[in-house]
């Protein structure tokens, strides 16, 4: 770990004046005078400890007043401040009642200790866990290198990697909570140093590897996430979330699925929002599964059809073919948990 200075930000404006770079920028191309944000510090310090990120200054945004609130309004929906911890989300009764899939996703993220430390803003902005990306000895595409080691047909160790949209970088996004947030059509509120606020849908917050290899989201240097907003559910909204992991105690997702459905009285799906985690470099909304399920009765046969539709576009790598049947089973099960 390199030596760095520490700045305790007093407000978002103060923080935005101090910052000049992002973790992603620095990982792609290191500069000597980077000032970067740290909230819970869980992901940022992993990179610093590995020596892959060498900031000159760390701006602690964790104690900025006002970013740690959870507000629920039956009409407007839910607002979660970017500094709210995962533990606070996990124990919030209104989230459990109105956004069950999010509650489940947060409860399956990391460990109780890490949930006490991690903030929601940091969680959705964290970088992927590809072991080549995280290795100082492998300069991959995302670190200005000339190859994707994981993708290599003979030597790539890609059992945890992407089966969809894996044309360049084959990593999968590390935030399984984002899978649920995207399924609820959440938005991210971003403030910049000019004082401009924008509200970006989760679907547009993440950046595909094809679009910009350096980035996994749209955040720029002089921007900060202030809150995440979830629209109010209707009385017919139902949701479910399942995460498949090698170890139940603590592990990264091998495949996770969030399903949010509008269900009419006779168990018919009126509209479907189905998002897959650990399938693609960013959380992946399966239009195929959504279309297959809409206006259908929620039953085993239709759930399976939707699950299989989701996987028609899967192109597994040498060692992750198992993810296809895993997703089929998981999508089906998530849909059926709603019926």
């Amino acid at each position, binding site marked *: 770990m390199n030596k760095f200075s520490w700045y305790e930000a007093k407000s978002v404006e103060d923080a935005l004046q101090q910052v000049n770079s992002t973790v992603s920028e620095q990982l792609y191309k290191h500069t000597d005078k980077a000032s970067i944000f740290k909230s819970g510090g869980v992901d940022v310090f992993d990179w610093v400890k590995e020596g892959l990120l060498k900031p000159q200054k760390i701006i602690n945004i964790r104690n900025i007043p006002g970013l740690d609130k959870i507000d629920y309004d039956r009409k407007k929906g839910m607002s979660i401040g970017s500094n709210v911890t995962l533990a606070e989300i996990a124990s919030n009764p209104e989230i459990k009642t109105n956004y069950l899939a999010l509650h489940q996703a947060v409860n399956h993220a990391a460990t109780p200790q890490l949930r006490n430390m991690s903030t929601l803003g940091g969680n959705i902005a964290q970088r992927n866990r590809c072991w080549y990306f995280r290795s100082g000895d492998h300069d991959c595409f995302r670190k200005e290198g000339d190859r994707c080691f994981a993708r290599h047909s003979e030597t790539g*160790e890609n059992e945890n990697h992407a089966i969809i949209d894996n044309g360049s970088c084959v990593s999968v996004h590390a935030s399984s909570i984002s899978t649920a947030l995207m399924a609820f059509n959440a938005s991210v509120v971003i403030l910049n140093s000019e004082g401009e606020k924008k509200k970006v849908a989760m679907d547009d917050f993440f950046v595909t590897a094809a679009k910009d290899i350096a980035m996994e989201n749209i955040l720029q240097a002089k921007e900060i996430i202030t809150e995440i907003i979830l629209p109010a559910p209707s009385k017919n909204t139902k949701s479910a979330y399942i995460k498949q992991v090698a170890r139940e105690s603590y592990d990264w997702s091998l495949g996770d699925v969030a399903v949010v459905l509008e269900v009419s009285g006779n168990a018919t799906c009126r509209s479907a929002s189905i998002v897959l985690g650990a399938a693609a470099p960013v959380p992946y909304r399966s239009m195929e599964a959504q279309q297959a399920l809409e206006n259908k009765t929620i039953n085993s046969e239709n759930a399976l059809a939707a699950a299989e539709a989701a996987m028609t576009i899967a192109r597994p790598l040498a060692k992750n073919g*198992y993810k296809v*049947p895993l997703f089929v089973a998981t999508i089906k099960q998530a849909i059926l948990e709603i019926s």
Partner: protein
Amino acid sequence: MDTRKEKFPYGIPGHNLSEIEREIPIEEPPVWPINDKLKIIGKRVTRIDALDKVIGKAKYTSDIKLPGMLYAKFLRSNVPHAVITSIDISKAKSLTGVHAIHLIENTQKEGEENKNGKYPIVKYVGQPLGGIAAESLEIAKDAIALIKVNYEKKSFVIDIDTAMEIGAPIVFDEPITQQQDGGDVGETHDGSKGKGNVRGPSTSSFFGGPRGDLVKGFEEADVVVERTYRTQVHTHMPLETHGVVVDWNSDVMMVYASTQNTNAVRNEMASIFNLPKSKVRVFCDFMGGGFGAKHSSGSFGPMAANLAKKTGRPIWLMLDRQEEHLSEGNRPNSIQYLKIGAKKNGTLTGIQQRSHGTAGVALGAGVGRIAQILYTCPNFATEQYDVLTNAGPGAAWRAPGNVQGAFGLEQAIDELAEKLNMDPLTYRDKIDKSEVRKVERRRGAKLFDWSRRQPAGSGKGVVKKGLGVGQSTWPRFVTLDSSVEVKIHNDGGVEIRSSVQDIGTGTKTILAQVVAEELGLEVKDITVNIGDTFFPVGPGSGGSVVTGSITPPARNATYEAKKALLKLVAKKWETDSSELFIENGQIGSKKDASLKMPFKGATKLMRTSQISKIASRSDDYGGFQQPWGLAYGDLGSVQFAEVSVNTDTGFVKVDKIVAVHSCGRPLNIGQLESQINGGVIQGVSYALYENRVMDNGTGHMMNANVDQYKVPFSMEIPEIETLVVEEYSALSSTDAYGIGEPANIATAAAIANAVYNAIGVRLYEIPITPASILKALGKVS
């Protein structure tokens, strides 16, 4: 030698307990009855250091902080195979806070040109090349990053299959030998035979070589199972990494080591630095796990000592987690071909085994002796090959070879039983001559409720349950060079001393128990000072040898000291010391109940400050199977596994393990259970989770951390029920043995058999993962 005859308990209580007469050396203590009749032995005695460990008072090697101490860090290779052309240390040297740099160089014979070059050839990623001592660990790390190593890269080979191909890059182009360390416990390997990357075969063990006629054996067979099994490379992952603190400021080199073998570290350091053994003192008070990989001073011992010599300051050198994974040992993988034949009635007619495994740049990838000895079979042959690859060296790992071997053998026996239409337990009753395992099977089957087992794959629903069983054997090894000193001080204190270390299993506690039982005192009255090579030499903590090697001399020395004390009391009471005894801290007389003296009072009769007696491990009563210390009997176990397999997602959950073990006379049931739990957990992990992932393109280990290297946490650990079967063999004054290795042998095999029982498809490779289950079920295209 003067001897006397005594009757000893013999056999298994509740099954066949009887008596046997032994002729024993006259100076040995009288026979102990079975545990039921003893006060402290065989009971659940709390670890004497439990509180210190829990509150953090226990000082481990990494906790050692000495005045003026410097912190050291290794320079390591980041390429898998290369010749080092130069190393530029100029920038590192001038960094403020750096005190010394030591590079590892080839030793040069006087007058000879060094044909191998100045530096050793790099053969794996993570190979130590040098070290730096600095005022802080951070400075040392920064300095390491400033060293520039120039490599002339060579082609390399990482995976075992490629390494065996003709034309593969050669890892060593010469015959190699490897010094056995205490953790090898007779593991076979022979690097002088064979060429290229494939060395061997080893065809024999201390149980002999091939026997009978395999061709004839298979001709006689009505049923044959012929399979190839594969196991993965498994790193040790002790919570405490390897390392030392070396203080060489005085005449004596003081080495604080995280080690399973203080004596071996002492001997190695003395040899390397050309010092008499009396000038090296090795300490190990608390150990954070070793599992076989910590029998030597490694490269960190000499590195720390060299830096201490250069700087004149104590050196702290503990490895980090990545270094631990890369270079401090692993359980080699295996590809095992097994062919087993049996007659219709089940009688085994032939076992043929051929294995290949890689211990990286080291030897020792054999699959053990389990196929050779577990079952009665007249015709047997094995060929065990080492395959060299450009990866970190293997090391002994809790029952070296046998864990891999059991995974193959116990699945093959299961498959054979099914072909013979026999229940796996009934079939083992037929082919396993061990009496103790027979009892273990019966008691275990009852506890586990084996009768609920259904035909393979017959369960309905997506999640299928399965039950399986696996067995193990492990030799009763005894280290004859095992001594202790017992001191009774004139203030009533009692102390036991030995260089033997407590690897964490509770050696200190059982020593206190043995001494306390013999002296009629309580465990809290005994001070245990071990893990110091200035005390009499004890065994290394490997091969499950410690209990069987050190507790008999502990009891014998205590008995001698007791006799000396009682003589003083007898003199005062004007009676014969043979009539005196100690019970509940009081000395009494068998003849005159009115005579009583507290133990502490008796010690005031001593003319000197202490009574001190040293005893060493005597030969087993009735001798050994092999004179070097291979005892009769074995440490057998039977483990039962219950699993749930999700046939849609491929996930396997181990719901329950019943582990039934024997270790002669059990000394401390709580500690034995704890050790069995540990072995089972590592077995579950071996079967389902842990796997060293190497990138074959770059030679790097991709999961050299605790995040992606998957050790099990609380929710992965099944319900574990343990049962320890008492078995008396009348072989020593304690008749007790260890349980470390056997606890780990059978688990993965039992789980694999249970998975087969659940889904009706057999997995021949571990770790068993969702990917392998879905593939086995035909769900992956």
